[in-house]
Structure formats: C-alpha cells, structure tokens
C-alpha cells in the first residue's frame, strides 16, 4: 500500500516538472522580447535593460530556466501588467470563487450522475434508460456557455415575477454583503499576515462563510446566484458520470458474485447498492477526478457569462489584455491542481479497493 502511494507520488514529480517546462517554453515563445511581453507599454529601452538584468533574461536559457523554477517554487509568479500587483495575490483572491463554483457543480454532477447511471443500468433498455442516455448524450454535446445563456434567459427573464426567478449575473445582490467570519467573531487578524490570507481565502467562499456565520439571508442570496452557473458548469460532468456509472454497473451486474448474492435471497436493492455499486464505483471515481479539468476549463466560460470574479474570468481577461504573467501563473496553478486532484483520486483507491491495499 505504502509502496503504491510512494510510486504514485513519485510519478507526479516529472509531470509537474514537465508542466513548468511547457509553460516556460510558452512564455519564451511569445513574439517579441520577454520584457515587452511582461511589462507591456511601460517597457522603454532603459527599463528593459534593467528588467532583463534583474530577471536574468541576459543569461543562457538553461540558467533562465533555473531562475524561473526558483521563483515558482518560492511562490513568485511575477506581477500583473495590468494591475501592477503580484500574480500570487490576485490568484489567492480569485481562487475561492472558482473553487466554490467548481465544488457546487461537482456536487450536482455526482448527485445527479450516479443515481441516473444506476437506474439506467438496472432498468436497461427501458424507457428510463433510453431517456437518461439521450439526455446524457445531449449533455456532453452542449456548449457550456450556450446552456448558461439559455438558462439565464429562462430563469431571469421568462420566469421573472415567479418564485423560480434566479439572478443572471454576479455572486451576491447589491446591498447584501457577506461579512467575513473573522470579523463577525471579532477575531483580531492583522492584514498582510499569513493567517489573514488564509482566513480571507475561506471567507471569500461565500457559501461556507455564511454557513459559519449563520447568516441565512446571505446564504439564500448567494445560493440563488450560484445555481445557474453551477448547473451550466455541471452538465458535461454530470452526463459523463452518468454514462460511466451505467457502463460500469452493467459490467458488474454480469458478474457471478451478483448472481450469488441474488441466489442467497438478498433484497435486490441491497444487491445493487452494496454488492454492485461499490465495485462499479472505481472507474466512476477516476472519471470524477478527470472532471476537475473540465470544471476549470468550463469556469473560464461560465464565469465570463455570469460575471463571476473567479480565476476563469480573470484568465480570460488576462488573455484579451495580453497580461502574460497572469496567464502563465494561473495556467501553472490550474494544471498542478489538476495533477494533485488526480493524484488524490488515485490514492483514494487504497481506501475504496481492498485489492490495492493488499498489494
């Protein structure tokens, strides 16, 4: 078991190294010199000379890569051209929004996808199965941003003046504010300290913050704002999870031990939920891990449509404004986060599958 875990962790190291190398190559491939790319309009000949010397751009490429690695491992992604602020700071401000949106979307996808897949498999070839599979196929074929816009049209305009009305943009209504939990509890936190950064990070997840502070009015408002983007973002993962659960369940339901369980006279529900589902879940969990990538990419589109100030929208704005330090920093963090999540998923097999534990 330990051996499996260590091997899996070691395997991620070259991948992360590769991610850094790819982003380094991309950064150096921007047309024009890095100084103009990094500093934008501010770059004059004198400033550039100084900048190149400071950043080591006048040194051989291998040395440059060394400097780059050193900076990244110390959490320094440079400064944004547009905001003249450290990329790391912007990232820490924006991540909670995206993480919250992503987690809610993933929750919806799992909550909808797994039961749909199970029902579809158990009632194979029935009307329900056909319906679920048509819906799943349509779901994976839908552009996220289109679905988001259509949902906004239906729920914000067509259902206006009904209890089903939902806001089409923003994270929270004007006039409502999510007071950070540390302020509500009157904890003394000094701005700029690591403790403050951590507290601020969690307080920026409005759902979590309003649950901690028990401010149900804010929670209601925040959830209302979150529903449409989360539903739009969850569609593709939901459809993929439903398809995977179905095919995995069908595979397991054919096994001899299922027949044995039924022959023992167990209730069908028990056979499905205990004997079949647990065994069918492994590939489903792998797929769920892979959906984190879809969620991050989808966040770029969903956040742009719904006016969410998250990582995705920032990345989009940075690309449009050619703010390359942000593009680079955000890409690295998202890719490394993706690798980390999939590493965690693989490590979770140890708990789910006893065969791996015994290996």
């Amino acid at each position: 078991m330990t051996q499996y875990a260590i091997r899996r962790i070691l395997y991620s190291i070259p991948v992360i190294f590769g991610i850094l190398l790819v982003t380094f190559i991309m950064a150096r491939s921007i047309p024009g010199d890095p100084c103009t790319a990094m500093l934008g309009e501010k770059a004059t000949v004198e400033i550039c000379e100084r900048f190149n010397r400071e950043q080591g751009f006048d040194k051989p490429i291998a040395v440059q890569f060394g400097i780059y690695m050193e900076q990244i491992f110390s959490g320094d992604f440079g400064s944004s051209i547009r905001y003249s602020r450290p990329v790391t700071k912007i990232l820490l401000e924006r991540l909670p929004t995206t993480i919250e949106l992503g987690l809610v979307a993933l929750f919806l996808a799992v909550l909808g996808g797994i039961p749909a897949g199970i029902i579809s498999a158990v009632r194979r070839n029935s009307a329900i199965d056909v319906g679920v599979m048509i819906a799943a196929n349509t779901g994976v074929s839908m552009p996220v941003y289109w679905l988001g816009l259509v949902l906004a049209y239906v729920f914000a305009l067509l259902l206006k003046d009904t209890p089903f009305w939902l806001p089409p943009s923003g994270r929270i209504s004007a006039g409502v504010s999510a007071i950070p939990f540390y302020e509500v509890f009157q904890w003394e936190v000094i701005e700029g300290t690591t403790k403050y950064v951590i507290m601020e990070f969690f307080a920026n997840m409005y759902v979590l913050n309003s649950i901690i502070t028990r401010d149900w009015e804010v929670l209601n408002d925040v959830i209302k704002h979150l529903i449409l983007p989360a539903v739009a973002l969850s569609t593709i993962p939901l459809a993929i999870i439903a398809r995977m659960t179905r095919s995995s369940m069908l595979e397991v339901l054919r096994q001899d031990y299922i027949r044995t369980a039924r022959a023992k006279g167990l209730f069908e529900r028990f056979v499905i939920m205990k004997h079949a589902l647990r065994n069918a879940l492994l590939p489903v969990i792998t797929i769920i891990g892979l959906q984190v990538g879809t969620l991050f990419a989808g966040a770029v589109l969903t956040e742009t449509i719904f006016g969410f100030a998250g990582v995705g929208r920032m990345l989009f704005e940075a690309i449009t404004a050619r703010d390359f330090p942000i593009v680079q920093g955000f890409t690295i963090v998202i890719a490394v986060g993706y690798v980390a999540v999939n590493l965690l998923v693989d490590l979770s097999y140890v708990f789910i599958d006893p065969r791996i534990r015994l290996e």
Partner: protein
Amino acid sequence: MTQQTENKLASLVVDGQDESYHSDSLLKLTMRRILRQRSAVIGGSILLFLILVAIFAPAIAPFDPNFVLIGHEDIKRRSDPCIHLLGCDETQPQHILGTDGNVRDVFSRVVFGTRVSLMVGFTTVGFAIVIGTLLGALGGFLGGWVDNAIMRVMDVLLAFPSLLLAIAIVAVLGHGLQNALLAIAIVSIPIYARVVRASVLSVKEQEYVAASLALGGTKMHILFRRILPNAVPPLIVQGTLGIATAILDAAALSFLGLGAQPPTAEWGTMLGTERNQIFTAPHLVFFPGLAIMITVLAFNLLGDGLRDAIDPRLKN
C-alpha cells in the same frame, strides 16, 4: 465423415447456393455491424445531412453570410425570426432565423457556419491523428528511451485540462482561427499517440509479425503494413469522438474571441458577439448554439455507435 455430410458438401460444391456458407468481405460485415447500432445510424444520418448542408450552402442560404441587408430591405437590426408560412406579416421580408446586429441574415450565417465547423473538426483531428500516429508508432515499435521520451511528453500534455492548454497556446500564438486550430490539434495529439502505441504493443509480438520479419520485411514495411493497420479501427472511433470535442473547443475559443474573428460566419463567434443580447434578441444566441449542439451530438453518437460495432472492448 458420414454419408449424409458428404452428400451435403458435394451439393454445396456443385451449386454453392446455401446462404449460410457465403462469406462476406470484412468491409461488408463491418458495415452490417455498424448499421445495427442505432446511435451510429442516427449520428451518421445527421452528419450526412450536415455535410450536404455544407456542400450546398450557397444554394440553401438565401443570402451571402456577410451580406448586409441595409438599403436592400426595409428591416431593422436584430429583428425577430419571420416565417410567412407561420403567420408572419407578408409585408415584412422573410428571415426564418431573424437578422443579427449587423443586419445580416442569421439563417444564411448558420448554414455557412456548417462549413467552418466541419472543416475545423476534420482538419484538427486529421492533423492530430497523423502526428499522434507517428509518435505512438515510433514509441511502441522502437521502445526504450524513444518510447519513454515521447510518452512522458504526452503525459505532460495530458496533465493540462485540454481547453485550458489550447487557450494558453492561443494566448502565445495570437488570436485567430488558424492558431486556434493548431492549438486544438496539439492538445489532442496525446490521445491518438496512446491509442496507436497500445495497438502497436499488442501486435508487435504476434507470430505474423515475426513471420514478416523472417521473410525479410524491412522495419518500415512491418510497421506500416503489418502493425499499423491494426490501429485503424480504434483510431476511427477515437477520431470521430475527437472531432466532437474539437468542434466544441474551437467554438468555445471563438466564443471567447480567441478563435475565428468577425465577420467569419462561425457559430462560436456568432454566439460570442451577440451574447449580451440574450435578453433582447435571444434568437441570435439560441440558433448558433443549437447548431453546435446538433453537430457535436452527431459525431458523439456516430463515435459511440462505431465503438460498439468495431471494438466493444474500448467501451470502458
């Protein structure tokens, strides 16, 4: 052998009429298996329809996709769909999907958009398959450090969420349809490299490969004539599903303004430029999105059906 069997065999040799002894060609058999898959038939039919629309776009579309109607017709910007048969006032000019912000016929633009999307799908996946096949075949066939090096690079590319990597590549290369296509092609290479490598590894040790080697076949001959044909079925399946993803990703890039640029009649661009009109002119967002969905759905259904017909093992 009993007398009865001998007689039966003899009669077969004579007239050869017994249906059950007919052997069909491999292609015929495969076609029959594909036609038995409902999803393949539905997906294939939609695709055929789309290809016809793309080919005959100038005949189907009432206007040139970039033709501005101001001065030619008495029509306003972003006017609603008007179909005379469905009761739209006869005095109004007919535009079945309405007009857009530049007073162009949306239906004509959607029809011509089929060309762009199909072209995007086929070229990106074609490019990715060629490069991916080459890399996967070399890795699987040569093994050793070549294989290791190629596959580690592929692992790194797969470590990025694909659309995100495509976005980053476009950010570096610059906006535009061509760069978007290149970016999407690059991010899809690893899938094909893996498929081909797996096929190569599975047949490399087969006896017929050894036989070919014994007969004096060169390495290239063995790779291209004996080994690679085995990779074709899974490549077709993966390629069909890959086209769906490529179209979806290209439309997303265009929606963000990173891919096809206006005035190109591309569905993602059409959606992107009019996305703020969702509450005032929803038809401008609805129809291009529907077109994307139908096209992607066609490739997904066809790919699923082909997989079930050609190689059920790929299902999981």
